[in-house]
C-alpha cells in the first residue's frame, strides 16, 4: 500500500509495509541517511525528525501514522532557527563522532521555535531525550544559548 506524505517540502509516496517505522522509510527508501538509528525504543533521540512541526522519534513511528502528514528531516530543515542552531554548532565545534548530532539539531531547532530565549531548565527539558555518548552536552548547551542570542540582534 502506498503511503503519501510530505517530505522536506515535497509530496512523496512510499510503497512499504504499513508497520515500517518512519526511520527506515527515510533511510532505506529515500536514502535520507542524516536521521540515525541509535536504540529503536525511543530512548536516544538519534532518529528525531519533525512531524507536523513537532519533534518525533521516527524509530517508533509507524509509517501508517504519517499518512497525510508533513515530515522534515535534517536534510530539509530550514528557517532562521535552524540556521542559527547549525551556525552555533559550527562556531563551537559541538560534534565529536557526530552520530547523535542530527537528532540534537532537530530537537534544538524545535526548542528555539517554541522558546526563543530558553533557560538552562528549558534546555534540559527539551534536550534530555537526546543521548550523546561523546557527552558533547556542555557545548550543546552553549550553542543553543548562542543561537538564541544571535536571533535576538
Amino acid at each position, binding site marked *: 500500500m502506498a503511503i503519501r506524505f510530505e*517530505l*522536506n517540502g*515535497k509530496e*512523496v509516496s512510499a510503497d*512499504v*509495509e504499513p*508497520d*515500517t517505522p518512519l526511520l*527506515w522509510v527515510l*533511510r*532505506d*527508501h*529515500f*536514502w*535520507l*541517511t*542524516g*536521521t*540515525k*538509528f*541509535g*536504540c*529503536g*525504543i525511543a*530512548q*536516544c533521540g*538519534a532518529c528525531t525528525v519533525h512531524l507536523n512541526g513537532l519533534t518525533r522519534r521516527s524509530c517508533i513511528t509507524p509509517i501508517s501514522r504519517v499518512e497525510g502528514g508533513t515530515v522534515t*528531516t*535534517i*536534510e*530539509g530543515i530550514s528557517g532562521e532557527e535552524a540556521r542559527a542552531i*547549525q551556525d552555533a*554548532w*559550527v562556531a563551537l*565545534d*559541538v*560534534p*565529536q*563522532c*557526530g*552520530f*547523535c*548530532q*542530527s537528532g540534537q*539539531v532537530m530537537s534544538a531547532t524545535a526548542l528555539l521555535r517554541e522558546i526563543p530565549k530558553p533557560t538552562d531548565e528549558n*534546555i*534540559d*527539558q527539551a*534536550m*534530555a531525550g*537526546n*543521548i*550523546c*555518548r*561523546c*557527552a*558533547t*552536552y*556542555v557545548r550543546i*548547551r552553549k550553542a543553543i544559548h548562542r543561537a538564541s542570542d544571535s536571533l535576538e540582534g
Partner: protein
Amino acid sequence: MTRQSDTTATGGLTRRGFLKGAVASAASLVIGVQLPGKAWAEDGVAPAASAFAPNAFVRIDPDSIVTVIVKHIEFGQGPVTGLSTLVAEELDADWLQMRAELAPADASKYSNKLFGLQGTGGSTAMASSYEPMRKAGAAARAVLVQAAADRWGVDPREITITRGTLTDAAGAHKASFGDLVADASKLEVPSDPQLKSPDDFHLIGTQVGKLDTPEKSNGKQIFTLDHYPDDMVVATILHPPQFGATVKSVDDSATRAVKGVIGVKTVPAGVAVYAENTHAALKGRKALKVDWDSSGAETRSSQQMERDYSKATKKPGLDARNDGDVEKALNSADTVLEAEYFFPFLAHAPMETLDAVIQFKGGQVTARMGSQIQTVDRGAIAQVFGVDQGKVMLYTEYAGGSFGRRAQPGGEFATEAAQVAKALGSDRPVKLMWTRENDIQGGRYRPLALYRVRGALDKDGKVVAWDQQIAVQSFMKGTAFESAMVKDGIDSTAVGGSAELPYAIPNLRVGQHLMENGVPTLWWRSVEHTHNAYVNETFLDELFERAGTDPVEGRLALLGNEHPRHSGVLKKVAEMAKEAGDVPEGRQRGVAVHKSFGSYVAEIAEVSEGAGGEPRVHRMWCAVDCGVPVNPDVIRAQMEGGMGYGIGAVLYDAISLSDGGYVEQSNFDRYRAIRIHEMPDIEVEVIRSTEPPTGVGEPGTPPSGPAIANAWRRLTGKSVHRLPLVPITA
C-alpha cells in the same frame, strides 16, 4: 527496492561516488614521507605505487586544495583535524584550503609508529604522527618552493609562503599551490626536510575549526550505516543469550514468512536474517525461534564472580610492584584502613552500533566499516573468504563513537560480518547492522574487577604502607598484543596506573590476580586506568581524611619534586576551583589526579545530593598537561567528553549477569547513559607545555570518577567502594 533520485537531499548518486573511496584527480601533487623518492602525479586512485611506500600522504590538487590522508579512524577524538593541522603548519597553508580523507587499510603505508601495524588506540594518534605528518607538510613545502624558484629564476631562500600563497622577496612573483602542482610533481622530494621551530608555529597551538564539523551538523557526514550500494541486502543477527552458548536448532518458518526476508543462516556467532530492507530484517529476527546449547557457556552470575574474585584477593597475587616490607609496615602501623572495591562490567555503547558493509564479488572483497585496527580486521576478513589480504579492500569509515569497542585485537566483529556476508552465498553487498540489544548484550565489556586495599598511617598521619590486590580478567591473553602488553606475567592492562603509583609511600605492594571468565572483555575508554585511578585516588583520599591532611597539599607532599607534571596540573586545578569561589552551602568538592597515555590530568568535582538522594554533579574543573597542545579546543572538547563518559559510568552504569549468565540490560532504558541535565558545567585549562604531544581521547576519564566519589564522601560521610554510585534498579 527502487532507488529514489528525486528526494531533496542525499541521494544514491552522491553515495555511489563516495563508494569509490579516495580518488585523486589528474595531475595532483602527491607527497609521501620518510622515504626519498620522486614526487609524482597520479591519475585515478590513491597512490599505490610500491616503489614509494610512504607512510603518510599529502595531496595537492590543481585547485590548491590540500588533502591530508589520515591513517587513523575518526570517531570524534579529532585526528582528522589534528593531523591536518600538522601538515598545514609546515606547509604554511591556509586552513580553508585543507581537507582530509581516511586512508584505506594498508599496513605497508599506514602503520602506527607505536604499534607496528595500522591501528588507532591508546590515544596514540597524535603522538605517533606528530613528526611524520609535520615532515609530510615540510616536504611538500620544499618541493613547491623549489618549483617556484625554478620558474622565477630566484633563490629558494628568497621565497616565502603565507597562507597558501608563494611570493619572492622582490614581490615580483606570486603563485598558489595549484599553479605549481605540475612543476612540483617532477621534482625530487627531500627525505629529511627542515622542520619549523615551535616559535614560528601559527596553527599548532591555536584554535582552528574542525574539518568535519559542518557535515556533522547538517546530516551529510556518511558513516558505515549510511552506505546503500546498489542491490544491498540488510542483515541482522541473533546472538546466543549466554556467552559461549551455540545454536542447537532453528525454527525460522515465521521469519521466512515476513515480507522482505530473503534468507536465514546459522553462522558461528548466531543466526543471521537477511532481508531487502532493515524493517524486514528486524522483524524477521524477532520471529526466530532458536534452541541454544549452553553446555560451553559462562553461567555464573556477576554476584558469583564477585565472590570468586573476592576470595582470590585474600592472598597476595603476582607482584607488579613491591617496595619495602608491606606486611611488616601494616602490622606495626598506628592506623590501618581496609576496603574491598567492586567494579561491574561496562558496555561501551557507542552511538553507532557495530556495522559493516561487505561484498564478495569476482574473487575480490570490498568492506566498509569503522575499523580501528585495520591490519587485524583486514586479515580476519581475508581469512573468512579464503583470499589473500591483497584481495580485500577495506575502507575505514567515519564511526559513531568507539571508546575502545571498535579496536578488537582478535578482529571478532570483522570476522562475524564477513561470515554473515559469506553465508548468504550471493555477490550482493551485505550490511550487517547490530541493534542496541546486540551491543549492550554483546560482551567485550570493561572487565569486572575487584580490589582489596589496605593502607596504613603512622602516628603523625603519614601514609606508610599501601597494599593493593587487583583481581581482574586479562583480555590481552592470546591476542596479537599479548607480547607487548604482558611482561613476565604482569598484564599492563590490569595494573597500569597502579604499578606506577607516583606517591612516595615507603612500603608499597601491587598484586595482580588474573581471573578466568567466560565473558569476553576489552579495553574501555582509558582501559585499566578507570578502575585503578578510582581505587588509588579514593583510597588515598580516605587516608588523608582520617589523618586530617588536606587532599591537595597531601598529594603534593607525596609527589615531592619527582613528579612536576602531576603537581603542575594539581596546583592548576586547585587554583581554578579556588577562583570560582567558596563551596556553596550543601555541596562538597573532591579532587583526583592521574596520568594515563602520557598525559597528566587533575580534576575537581562539586557535588550535592539531588533528587531521590542521587548525587548531582554541578561543576567540574580540569587541568591537563598533554605536551604541546596542537589544538587546544580539541583538547578541551576531549576532556569534556572524557569526563562526561566517566561521570555517566561512575554514577549509573553496570552490566550485570543473572544466574545462568544472562545479561540483565539490553538497551538505554536500563543501561543508563548520562544526559544533558546530568552533565556538570566544565572548565578546562590546558597547560602550555613544550613536551612532545601525548593522548587526549582517554586521559580525561580516569580522574572524573574518584573526584566525584571523594566529594560525595566528604558530603555524606559515605565511602563509595562499589560502583555504580546510583544503585541499579532491576
